[in-house]
């Protein structure tokens, strides 16, 4: 079972590893250890891992953003690296040097949530949203429509 491989790879990093559904493993990781976790996953699964998506969630009542790095290990299953960062200082280290294909996902999250990926030189606003929305992040829960 690949959950054992994930547990072994993330030993000492993950706070909790559990199976959410068949072929869906979630690993909760502190935000400063996300890069370590992903590089260990890459090593464990022989680099046959791609970023399926980075799903950011705004938990406004708790004052935090949650980032779900959904990685698909080819031939095994989904590994969700889950972390939380404070809403008033939304910064996390980039992973594009580990997985170049994560670039688009980071740009999307930056554009719609305003979460800064430290070390990503390509970050820029309004690559998705219209230019007049600069500084406004539509997928945050406190964004008012209309």
């Amino acid at each position: 079972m690949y959950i054992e491989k994930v547990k072994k790879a993330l030993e000492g990093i993950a706070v909790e590893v559990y199976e959410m559904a068949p072929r869906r493993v979630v690993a909760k990781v502190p935000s400063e250890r996300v890069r370590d976790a992903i590089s260990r996953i890459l090593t464990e699964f022989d680099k046959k891992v791609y970023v399926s998506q980075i799903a950011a969630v705004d938990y406004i009542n708790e004052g935090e953003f949650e980032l779900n790095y959904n990685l698909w290990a080819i031939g095994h299953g989904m590994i969700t690296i889950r972390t939380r960062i404070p809403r008033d200082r939304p910064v996390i280290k980039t992973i594009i040097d580990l997985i170049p294909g994560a670039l688009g996902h980071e740009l999307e999250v930056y554009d719609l949530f305003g979460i800064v990926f430290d070390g990503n030189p390509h970050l820029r606003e309004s690559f998705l949203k219209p230019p007049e929305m600069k500084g406004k992040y539509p997928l945050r829960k406190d964004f008012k429509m209309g």
Partner: protein
Amino acid sequence: MVTTKARYRIVDIPIGPQHPALHEPIMLRVKVDGEEVIEVSVVTGYNHRGIEKLAELNTPIRVVYLCSRVCGICNTVHNCCVVQGIEAIMGIEPPPRANYLRTIAMELERIHSHYLIIAVLAEILGFDSLFMLMMRDRERVMYLKELLTGQRVLSDYAIPGGVKRDLPSDAKDKFKKHLDYLEERIKYYKRIFERDPVILRRTRGVGVIKAHEAIAHCLVGPTLRGSGVKSDVRYEDPHAAYGEIPFNVVTYPDGDSWARMMVRFDEVIESINIVRYGLEHLPQGPAVPDPRKLPRVLPEGEAISRVEAQRGELCYHLISKGGNRLYRVKIRTPSFNNILGGVIGFREATLADVPVIFGSYDPCIACTERVIVVETKDSVRRYSLIELGKYVNKKLGGVR
């Protein structure tokens, strides 16, 4: 460094957002030195509709209909994917017959979508008659889809707990007749793509992506399988009735535009066989739930729903905190990965290759709707990739 003399020779050519070679609003900003491509940046943002925000503001049943409208060509897969996720949160299992019918609907969509992109690529290569012949044949798939779902295009076929309508009693004979015809025709078109010297010279060795690059750049679907990686959601993560239906995962090791198209030819044949098998082994029992009895309130929960769309892995991340709204709906379409990651395929291309390579990814802009840069050769004689390329070089032991 680019010398002054060189700078005069480098020309910026915008292809799009409105352009005869591209069928949807997107811009490829191509820097060329003569015929040689030295940099391609993809600029989108002409079609962003804020569907994820809208989905958070609507009831789950409305979200099903909203998500079908993310894309026209692949509406059934979006529909099935979001329904799967909502069912997982609600704890509903669709009946086996509904699962088979969903599978048949998704495979019909794959057949017509692959027919479309192969036809479009033929047109890009200058084979206009081939384009028209294929579009004529594709009409039969649209007819079959209408027969099954009630609509040619936007079908909204899956609903939580089943499908919208059952298979009509006289449909099986019609399916047999048209599937036989489609199989014969696709084999004929495949022979053309295998033998025609012009098609071979325009596509073979053009836009080569190696397997490790394809994975690192997060490519999915036929684009990934065209680089020889055996990754298919239907096989790795069976949904609907795929776990019970035998089929082959098609891969080609070449990694060029030709290989990506050949994957699609073989997948059409596989899909025709899946539809035949599904119709033959269609379980008895109910498939259509009463829509008035669908639950309006969601329990607390989370689901990551995946479906193999025509262009690759389609992924929905749904989070519910209870109540009659989903807290978060994250949609990631296959073209998002393929268009952005696929820029790596433009290395060493000439200007005439750009539409061919881009077409071979089967780009869907309505699905994607995003941006950005990637590949460059910053001097006239020597290649040197910009930041992202440098990362790749360092991490993967050199792409070029």
